[in-house]
């Protein structure tokens, strides 16, 4: 499986808040950020924790402006996010490679 997103791509995180374990923290749900770098591929912990089959998926470092997460703050927050929890932002440049 190749990386879908390249550094600099604008992405949005999933909006849904599942009842099971998830490595996408609630404060970052539905937020728009920028891919910093790929981190390689790892089994999705959300599935692994429930004993479901889980092939390794790309994980990315994603940078968010604090203002986009909390409506305040001048700092940045980065999170490590599995590809299945990210979608491209419409209208933003997406690497088709």
């Amino acid at each position: 499986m190749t990386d879908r997103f390249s550094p600099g791509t604008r992405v949005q995180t999933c909006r849904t808040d599942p009842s099971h374990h998830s490595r996408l923290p609630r404060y970052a749900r539905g937020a728009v950020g920028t891919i910093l770098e790929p981190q390689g591929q790892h089994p999705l912990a959300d599935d692994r924790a429930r004993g479901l089959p889980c092939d390794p998926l790309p994980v990315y470092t994603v940078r968010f402006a604090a203002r986009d997460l909390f409506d305040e703050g001048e700092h940045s927050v980065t999170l490590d996010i599995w590809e299945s929890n990210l979608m491209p932002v419409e209208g933003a440049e997406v690497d088709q490679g």
Partner: protein
Amino acid sequence: MSGEHHGTDATLAAQVRHVEALLEERGLVDPAELDRALEAFLARASPANGSRVVARAWLDAGFRARLLADGNTALVELGLSMGGGLQEQRLKVVENTADAHNVIVCTLCSCYPIALLGPSPTWYKSEAYRSRVVRGPRAVLAEFGFDLDPAVAITVWDASAETRYLVLPRRPAGTHGLDERSLAALVTRNGLIGVAPV
């Protein structure tokens, strides 16, 4: 997540013991082997490792560049590794500069580079630190007695997958001529987490 702050460590320890007992009962782990693996890992896990990495990076620009580009590969040069657990964890070293400061947290649990920093301090695992540092890092740093220049931009690194983070602090002024050992002695655990200057 429960709002209960007291006795969190004790509750966690009880849960871990329970899981361990179940694994042993089902023959999935050998208790003696588990003890040996944990002892061997913790014997090597110390903040002295992180301090050595930083001192070398301050003295050797080539090592510093390699460390920032690929932490795991650079560690091998010092005889260190992010292995020791079930799988090798990815290490990302983030560098403080005159304009940029970095702080580490794990808001979901307490992910931490144990191999380089030893077991994490209790406050790092507290709900107060984990929930507040992502929202207002400058105020949290001030509570640690660290009044960061308002012009310096802060990045908070929330370790939510398989990467562990280490802060490369700025080298203090007036340390020219010091050797690696003397420089390492200046580095503190809190400096490597990003809640204190060095």
